């Protein structure tokens, strides 16, 4: 089927830079002015510094400096057991922590060769919490980007809906952001009572919010003027820079790990991969809006199909035994002790495992030396690739264009800087 978003007829496609026509004093000489944007700036999505060189309002070069949120995630992981890495992954892309949990858990399971053994219910739960997180991720990105362009109301609407979803996630795992809900072999515990009803209810209300936001933004002249034709990326750029996710799809590159290398139970759902045609800021906006809708489709189907059963692999070498067993049998006591103190023994080897996170292909490259701790835990953060094109993309645009362009790249410091 054709899942291309056709650009509206009214859409202005501007290539290159429009010089202001009524420039008062064209003969006035300008000289390059260095200008610092960030690392702490209200219009920047995260802690990132851009050293700009501007000629008038026009940017002649942009030096995007990342790393302000570097927390030694990868090195830190080498000193934690395989299970203790989960809380660290929460803090990678911190607007969709569940998706990081999914990516990491699946990487370790692939290395252990137990991917096929994960209970079906656990796989559905992972899809559910993951897609909820994708919605919150996109809503944060879109809402914040709109706000930075002056549209405060859509931001509040989006965050209202995001809050409903966060509250539901809080019911699932006890935290909004620091979820640490998944485990190697399944989930920490089962879904709460009446999860399905609550989620359906929230999805219904969220659809209303999306309609409201669409009414406010989609035909809004101010909003469209700031997005259309700005920051155009081509498919060739994406391939060159390794850009995936909504940014990549905005160029028409229909790459989605859930479709192209289905994992968990994604091959059982009917959903589309929306792509753009121009690769500008508006396409990135539109692709994200559509992805929220597709995630909702997946959620509804997953709720329909959600099977009963175990939520965790039943193996005392991987899963903590039940407390009653731990207190009353030496076998479970030892298993509990060893899992906590030594960690799960992952066979020696290396693995690259990739999933579709909020910003694109989230990859984990793990190396094990057969002990309870990772020998190496490398992350491929999707927004790192997207941010790396920014210096080229910002060359020649106006200072004001940085805000929507950077905003819709959705750089998440926790993930990009690790």
């Amino acid at each position, binding site marked *: 089927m054709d899942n291309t978003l056709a650009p509206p007829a009214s859409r202005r496609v501007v290539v290159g830079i429009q010089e202001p026509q009524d420039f008062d004093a064209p003969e006035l000489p300008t000289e390059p002015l260095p200008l610092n944007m960030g690392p702490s700036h209200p219009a920047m999505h995260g802690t990132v510094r851009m050293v700009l060189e501007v000629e008038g309002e026009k940017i002649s070069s942009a030096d995007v400096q990342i790393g302000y949120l570097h927390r030694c995630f990868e090195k830190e992981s080498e000193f934690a057991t395989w299970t203790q890495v989960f809380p660290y992954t929460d803090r990678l892309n911190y607007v969709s922590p569940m998706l990081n949990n999914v990516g990491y858990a699946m990487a370790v399971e692939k290395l252990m060769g137990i991917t096929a053994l994960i209970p079906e219910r656990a796989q559905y739960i992972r899809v559910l919490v993951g897609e909820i997180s994708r919605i919150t991720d996109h809503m944060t990105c879109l809402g914040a980007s709109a706000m930075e362009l002056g549209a405060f109301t859509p931001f509040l609407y989006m965050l209202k809906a995001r809050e409903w979803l966060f509250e539901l996630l809080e019911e699932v795992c006890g935290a909004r952001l620091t979820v640490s809900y998944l485990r190697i072999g399944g989930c920490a515990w089962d879904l709460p009572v009446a999860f399905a009803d609550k989620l359906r209810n929230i999805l219904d209300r969220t659809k209303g919010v999306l309609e409201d936001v669409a009414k406010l933004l989609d035909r809004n002249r101010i909003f469209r003027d700031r997005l259309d034709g700005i920051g155009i990326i081509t498919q060739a750029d994406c391939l060159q820079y390794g850009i995936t996710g909504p940014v990549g799809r905005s160029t028409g590159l229909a790459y989605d790990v859930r479709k192209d290398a289905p994992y968990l139970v994604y091959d059982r759902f009917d959903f589309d991969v929306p792509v753009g045609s121009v690769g500008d800021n508006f396409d990135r906006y539109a692709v994200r809006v559509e992805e929220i809708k597709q995630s909702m489709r997946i959620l509804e189907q997953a709720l329909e199909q959600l099977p009963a059963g175990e939520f965790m692999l039943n193996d005392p070498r991987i899963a903590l035994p039940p407390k009653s067993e731990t207190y009353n049998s030496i076998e479970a*006591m030892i298993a509990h002790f060893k899992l906590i103190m030594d960690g799960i023994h992952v066979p020696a080897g290396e693995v690259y495992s990739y999933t579709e996170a909020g910003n694109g292909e989230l990859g984990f490259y793990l190396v094990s030396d057969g002990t309870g701790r990772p020998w190496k835990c490398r992350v491929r953060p999707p927004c790192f690739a997207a941010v790396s094109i920014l210096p080229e993309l910002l060359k020649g645009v106006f200072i004001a264009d940085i805000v929507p362009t950077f905003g819709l790249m959705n750089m998440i410091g926790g993930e990009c800087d690790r």
Partner: protein
Amino acid sequence: MSAGTIPTPGGGAVGAPPVETVTVTIDGKTQQVAKGTNLLEACNAAGANVPFFCYHPGLSSPAVCRQCLVDVKGQAKPVPSCYTPVADKMEVMTASPKVLDVRRQMLEFTLVNHPIDCPICDKAGECLLQKHYFDWDGKLARNDGIKVKKAKVVDLGPTIVLDQERCILCTRCIRVCDEVAGVHQLEMSKRGDHELLGTAPGHKLDNPYSLNTVDVCPVGALTSKDFRFAMRAWELYATPSVCAGCATGCNIDIHSSRGRIYRLVPRVNERVNKHWMCDEGRLTYKAVHAERLAAPMSDGGAVEWDRALEDATRRLRTVIDQGPGRLGVVFNATSPNEDLYALAKLSFEHLGVGRAYLAGRDQGWSDQILVSGDKNPNTAGAFAIGAGRLKTLLDLANDLKAGALGALLVVGTEGVLVGDTASAAMPLDRLEALVVLSTHKNAVTKAAHVALPLAGWAELDGTFTNKLGMVQRAHAAFPPAGDALPGWDVLSHLARKLGATMDFQTAKAVFAEASAKLPFMKGAVWGRAVRPLQLRFANSRG
């Protein structure tokens, strides 16, 4: 000797008899193994991972735990590998389904009566039963029968407490007493799951090697009264070192946490102490922390290093300027080679000292096993570095009485003038300058004009020479107490102030110079720096 045999290391030319070998196939890999090798050792040397409880590389094998069963082709039943010597053309399977099954069943039997003690057990974290269960069993309990009740706290003697419920009846402790200490003090009584470890009525486990039973105990049945409940094993950091308790120089690991030693355990060295060490040596760690001299003292008050060194220099200088022979130095047989070398260099090369003495701890008891009567860790090094120039403490007392000395530089106060009577015998008050480097506060530092704090043996990187003449390396487990510094460092500072051209920056530099000059250190290797390894990860990696 057939083609393809393994040559002995350095054999042939030396004329060592060639080792007779047999061909064994272990898990499909055929290899040559020395004849008479124990099958368990052959398997594990070949890369297999055969678990065991009762086997210990330093002891005989009774094959009581049945945990090391392996499949040998042609044998109807699995055989205990620790009890089976390799035979020619033997084909062994260490991980066949049958072997894995019996291994798991043996563990299940062992666990049936094992108490649920891990949270309160001293051995948790370094327990073989935990390790083997997690590696080889991996199944939850299938029965919830009542476990056999036994005594939880049995006082076996001055050093050991036994928990009979935890005991898995491997008899390693019995064999340690029999084969290492040479006394039969422990014994099994009763049978089946009522079998008990214990001593004969009215007898105690009190041999001088009793704490080795705690090391070899695969579970937490035997616990050291000294270490019991003091610290969780996985919180400790291990640093390789050498015991400073006597001239044997047993290789040890210092187990410490946050600058405090919790226990000393033997480190395997087949040429010195094999797998063992004596109880007396194990408890020497207590002295490391007691009554330390933590700050430099001048005229009885704590001062900064600079001030103390200046005071020391001024006092020594006055006497040196009076003429030769008025300055004496006291070496110590407990100091590492580096301190002794730095002191010898300063004294004999730069200051021209004519009167040098050697102090050290008094002689003590000894046996034919490990304990040496010489209670100093570096007597051999001190004699070699002193090269005949060192006189005794008796000579020192006589020289002091005769008024031959104006100043005395003491490096290490162990064994110098203990107690008031000895001080009275040594008229230290006649000295114009008494400069003392000491690890601990004692009568000598009290009498000193200037007392400088020294790093203790557990706090320094250095080498000790044992009674066999082996130069052995000790690593610093943690930084020195208070402001203390290693002896060579203090002496370098002092030398600079005295105008001598001795300037060592690291212990390694002292060692390098000493080993190049001194024949007894020829060929000794400093080795690479070792970082304390947390025991939690000791079985995985550093």
